[in-house]
């Protein structure tokens, strides 16, 4: 990790900031499925701020982000009975409900292929702050999960593609604009990076 990368993303915080609280999301979801409203509130207290952070980063508007969190918690409540702890962790399930709602929102609202003017301007401004050869990490990605080892085998630019998509909710086109690379290149990089990660893990 370079200093540049570290200063670029002050937002990142280490693994101690994530989930070593002993809170059991799956147990809370199972209680929700039985109609225990307090279990939903515990989930909200536990994850509300992190979920709002994830959604806000994607949609970029606080009001919209709160509407999505509202809908996400209503959904979590209504769909809790479909959660199956044998298939995955409760925490992952909750985050995916909120995140996909945010992604559906931005993809539906910005259906056009081209980047709108505001986004283009913002991306341009961010890009101009960087060196011409943009091969630094944009994200403080190391130390969060088991994917670290495999992510480390990718070039910084390819990692940037993945995290601009996953964390910022950028479309292929937005990533291409942000990195100043052709759209086709970005698409191919993402495709190959996913294949490489999958192979590295299996």
């Amino acid at each position, binding site marked *: 990790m370079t200093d540049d990368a570290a200063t670029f993303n002050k937002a990142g915080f280490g693994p101690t900031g994530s989930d070593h609280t002993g809170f059991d999301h799956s147990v809370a979801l199972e209680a929700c499925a039985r109609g225990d409203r307090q279990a939903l509130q515990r989930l909200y207290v536990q994850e509300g701020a992190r979920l709002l952070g994830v959604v806000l980063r994607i949609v970029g508007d606080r009001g919209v982000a709160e509407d999505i969190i509202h809908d996400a918690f209503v959904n979590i409540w209504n769909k809790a009975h479909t959660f199956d702890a044998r298939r995955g*962790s409760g*925490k992952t399930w909750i985050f995916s409900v909120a995140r996909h709602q945010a992604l559906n929102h931005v993809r539906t609202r910005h*259906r*056009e292929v081209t980047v709108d003017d505001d986004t283009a301007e913002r991306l341009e401004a961010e890009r101009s702050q960087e060196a011409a050869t943009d091969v630094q990490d944009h994200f403080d990605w190391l130390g*969060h999960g*088991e994917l670290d080892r495999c992510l480390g085998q990718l070039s910084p630019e390819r990692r940037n593609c993945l995290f601009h998509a*996953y964390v910022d909710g950028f479309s292929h086109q937005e990533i291409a604009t942000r990195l100043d690379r052709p759209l086709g290149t970005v698409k191919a990089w993402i495709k190959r990076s996913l*294949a490489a*990660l999958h192979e590295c893990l299996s």
Partner: protein
Amino acid sequence: MNIPSNTPPSIDPNELNELAGEYVLGTLDAEQREIVERQLSEDSQLQDAIQTWEARLQPYAVMAEPAAPSTSLWQRIERTLDNEETSAIASPRSRQIRAPKEGFWNSLWRNLTLWRGMSFASVAVAIGLAATLAVGPTSAPSPRYMVVLMTPQHTQAGWVIQASSSQQISLIPMGTFEVPPGKALEFWTKADDWSGPVSLGLVQPGQTQRLSLKDLPPLEDNQLFELTLEDASGSPLNRPTGPIQFIGRAVEL
């Protein structure tokens, strides 16, 4: 290869993994996302592939800085859940044998109080109109609905939808609306469990239009209606592409 019977035999494991990865990453466009989400309910292999990527990537979501929700957000969530529970009790699945309902005014008021930030004038106009509609000549036994379509900021009511039956609706303007040259207003609806909105066609501003929903499932509580600004010939895709001008949800009366 050992492929579960509910999966199309043509799907290549690498393609499946890539599709699931791009879905979780978020790089699929709206149309592709909708296809994946529709497929998901009946394709356990796709479910597993997506679940695997979710689990791998989720720890990295903490790179987005947390943001404290406003204090009223939890209350809003609770209110919605309370309201859902009330309507679930008041209208069991079979609408033919409904329990006696609270009075029209109480029900309307309960729902109106949920419309945040609505101006007093709009509320007054909406109640006035709804009352006229509700005491109309029809006494159909099917549930009746009202929808007030507000501007997205909830500042002004633009249209009211009256449903004389669960498949016949009238869209009634409450004012005028200037459609920019080369554009048109398109009318859409989506019930909670539909995968996407369905077009009800283009709408002339300032004119009442009667529509038949006979190709659609019966109107239901909380069904979403919206008017979006599209090109003159309507949305080129089978879903809204332009900005929402008016939006509202069906309230059972």
